């Protein structure tokens, strides 16, 4: 199993080789570049134009061929490379540690998202009758209505009795006062 040090060393070697190759290419193309510069300075008018057009046509052909090669090879090469990179990297931890999701979400216009939602269509897809029926069955609404009605009726009767009893006491006190009757041994509390 390769360690991080080994992988770093291999990367350095590859980069060094690439740099050497690039230097070699620059050195090897030095005569061509020099000749091109002289040709551009020496030639004039139509000769230079014909030369430029011929070189441009050759360059365009090469570019098209390179593009075809890239389109054919890159998917084959890129996919394994990406898979290797993703296997080596824990994207979830990476996002969690380096990405502020709250800040991202705060930038999102949720109101526009909600406005775009067709709530009527969602509601139409829900069987409201069945849902209401299930809620009523679970809640036992008839029992609640029955108990509350009984409670209201019972409280109403109790209140009526209490008020009439108080009126009885008030009448008794009035009559005692009118008849100038002395207070009872233990008068009823007011």
């Amino acid at each position: 199993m390769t360690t991080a040090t080994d992988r770093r060393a291999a990367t350095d070697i590859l980069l060094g080789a690439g740099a050497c190759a690039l230097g070699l290419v620059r050195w090897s193309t030095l005569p061509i570049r020099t000749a091109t510069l002289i040709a551009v300075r020496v030639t004039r008018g139509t000769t230079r134009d014909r030369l430029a057009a011929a070189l441009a046509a050759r360059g365009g052909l090469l570019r098209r061929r390179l593009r075809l090669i890239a389109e054919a090879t890159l998917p084959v090469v890129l996919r394994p490379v990406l898979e290797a990179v993703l296997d080596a990297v824990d994207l979830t931890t990476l996002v969690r540690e380096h990405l502020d999701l709250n800040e991202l979400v705060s930038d999102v216009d949720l109101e526009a998202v909600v406005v775009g939602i067709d709530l009527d269509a969602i509601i139409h897809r829900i069987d409201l009758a069945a849902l209401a029926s299930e809620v009523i069955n679970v809640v036992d609404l008839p029992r609640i209505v029955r108990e509350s009605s009984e409670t209201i009726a019972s409280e109403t009767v109790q209140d009526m009795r209490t008020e009439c009893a108080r009126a009885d006491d008030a009448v008794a006190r009035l009559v005692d006062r009118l008849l100038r009757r002395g207070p009872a041994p233990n008068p009823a509390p007011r």
Partner: protein
Amino acid sequence: MTASSREYTPAGVVSRVVAALVDAVVVAVTAGGMFLTVAAAEFIWRPKSFSWPKPAPWLSLAVLFVLATVYLAAGWATNGRTIGGSLMGLRVLSAARRPVGWSRATGRAVLCVLFPIGLLWVAVSGSRRSVQDLLMRSLVVHDWHHALDAAARPVAVSPGAGEVGPHRRPPRSVQLGHGFRQ
């Protein structure tokens, strides 16, 4: 006075008048139902020559008298209370705080029907008794929560006692609870 402290104390004129009015409505509705029943029977028997019955006044009064007497007597003798009494939480007991029997209940019912104004004597009486109660030696008490046997249990309520509870058989002179004269 709380509801619990008012239990078994004699009922006053307002409560008893309201209960009597409810009973009167019940009797009137029953009489009306009987009238409609007679009319319906007559209509079924002679539909072509049907006309609303027109009973003689004496017959109407007699029916009302019998109906009211039976209704009141049956209620007081069986349960100590009529529909009006149940609504107002009142119960008719004897002076000894026992259920009234059929004879006393019937006599009391006749007196109530013939002389309803005697109920107003409750306002004047120190012991909250009507003329009928004095004649029939009965008593009307508040009984909002308990059954007949509990209400009719002989209790001794001495003046000044805050609570009512079963102790022993009451003396001949019944003590009615604090604040009320004999």
